[in-house]
């Protein structure tokens, strides 16, 4: 696939130190390209600036240099659609499940006539058909996160950002969600940038894995995972890939320490 959905060039971000006196570079000259319809993961330890990177792409935080370009699929609408699934569901608890999804559709100025069909379609896809009129606080954490995924998919984004979306769930729920996410992707085919600290999760889900170092964040390794989908979580080929990556990771981490 020659067409890039997302191009990031020389991106940097500088934060003031907690004392307010100095500055440190969180992200330094980071470049990345994600092909349309592909699933890319960024793996890095906690606090390496992964969330900051997604926030810059989403336009929540400004960058201190560099360029982020997201190509819009439909030429008439020049602004690219960005879907975002956060660590916590971040639902509007006073709105019903259906209204939460419509909030995103409204924000993205999607034709009102399409709303009902989209709500039904994407709630079905995440396995929550029939929960339209329920309030988020009546749902389990896993179900709330499914609503958040449906909300992000419903705007049919040019890029779907996912920030450790399963890290707040218990492992059994998280595992089921990952398998379900694979199945959903067969139907929706969005372009995804997924951020996680779990190599296993990244290797299982993605086509491209990028490994990120800490302070400043830069990408030191790109890996293609060519195992066809649907994948089995217990596939030995995935374990082998993970093992190799872990080895490489620690080699780089130790270099950083020295």
């Amino acid at each position, binding site marked *: 696939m020659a067409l890039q959905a997302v191009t990031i060039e020389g991106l940097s971000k500088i934060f003031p130190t907690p004392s307010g006196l100095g500055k440190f570079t969180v992200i330094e000259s980071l470049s990345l390209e994600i092909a349309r319809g592909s699933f890319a993961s960024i793996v890095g330890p906690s606090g390496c600036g992964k969330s900051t990177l997604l926030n810059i792409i989403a336009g929540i935080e400004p960058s201190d240099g560099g360029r982020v370009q997201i190509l819009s699929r439909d030429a008439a609408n020049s602004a690219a659609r960005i879907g975002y699934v956060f660590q916590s569901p971040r639902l509007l608890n006073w709105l019903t499940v259906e209204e939460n999804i419509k909030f995103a559709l409204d924000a993205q100025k999607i034709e009102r006539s399409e709303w009902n069909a989209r709500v039904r379609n994407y709630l079905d896809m995440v396995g929550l058909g029939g929960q339209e009129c329920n309030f988020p606080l009546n749902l389990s954490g896993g179900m709330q996160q499914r609503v958040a995924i449906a909300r992000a998919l419903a*705007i049919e984004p040019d890029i779907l950002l996912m920030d450790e979306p399963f890290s707040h769930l218990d492992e059994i729920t998280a595992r089921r969600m990952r398998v379900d996410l694979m199945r959903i992707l067969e139907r929706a085919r969005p372009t995804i940038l997924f951020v996680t600290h779990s190599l296993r999760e990244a290797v299982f889900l993605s086509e491209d894995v990028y490994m990120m170092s800490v302070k400043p964040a830069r990408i030191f390794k790109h890996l293609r995972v060519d195992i066809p989908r649907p994948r089995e979580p217990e596939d030995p080929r995935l374990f082998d890939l993970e093992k190799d990556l872990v080895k490489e990771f620690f080699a780089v981490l130790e270099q950083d320490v020295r």
Partner: protein
Amino acid sequence: MSLFRREALPGLFSAVGLLLVWKAVSLFFLPTFLPSPLELVARIASLFSAASAYLILAKTLERVFVGLLLAMLFGCALGLIMGLRHSVGSFFDGWVMVLLTFPSIAWAFLAVLWFGLSDIAPIFTIVLIVLPYVAMNIWEGAKALDKELTDMGTAFGARRSLLLRQVLIPQLMPYIFASLRIGFALAWKIALVSEAFGASRGVGKELMYWFQSTRVDMMLAWGASFMMLMLAIDVLILRPWEKWVFSWRPALAT
């Protein structure tokens, strides 16, 4: 049903006890100085057999309503802007403190001197006294807004009006209702005081009139009628409204 009866029992005892003590004390005084419970009911009944009593009640209610509405509108807007913009918060902080600490009764007198005997004086007094309470409360709420939800809205491209309607204001609803209840309780008390000095008609004016005629029974009759109207508004309008607004919260174990 039996459970309901058992729980209602202490309340019933205290109500009957109060009426008995009241009745006993009233035996030592003239009805115009301290009426018995039954005499008070009779006064209220005769008061409201004339149409003018309803008009007087409606007039006071109108001032309470308009004053409270204006105080809520401007108070909420001010509190929200103060919370969202730090510089605005520091700018108005002193003003709000001045309004909060200035004696209420002084506003009531000043309003009469400035606006004369009119609707404006009591409404002006209500607004000036209630507004800073509302602004203070909403300011607190605005400082506690969840930034993660605002970021979510921004990431999905929500414009300002949508953010305000569906993300910010719903988070402020507990503070808005708390302000409304404090504001309501304050507003009708202020209305009566203000009317006593600065209105040609209204419940406060009636209280002043019967005070000058040393008729405690009529003062109590007006006071009790007004109290019942305010209670009815609280129980029949404010509480069900609040319950409806917060129906999204999971029901407590029943």
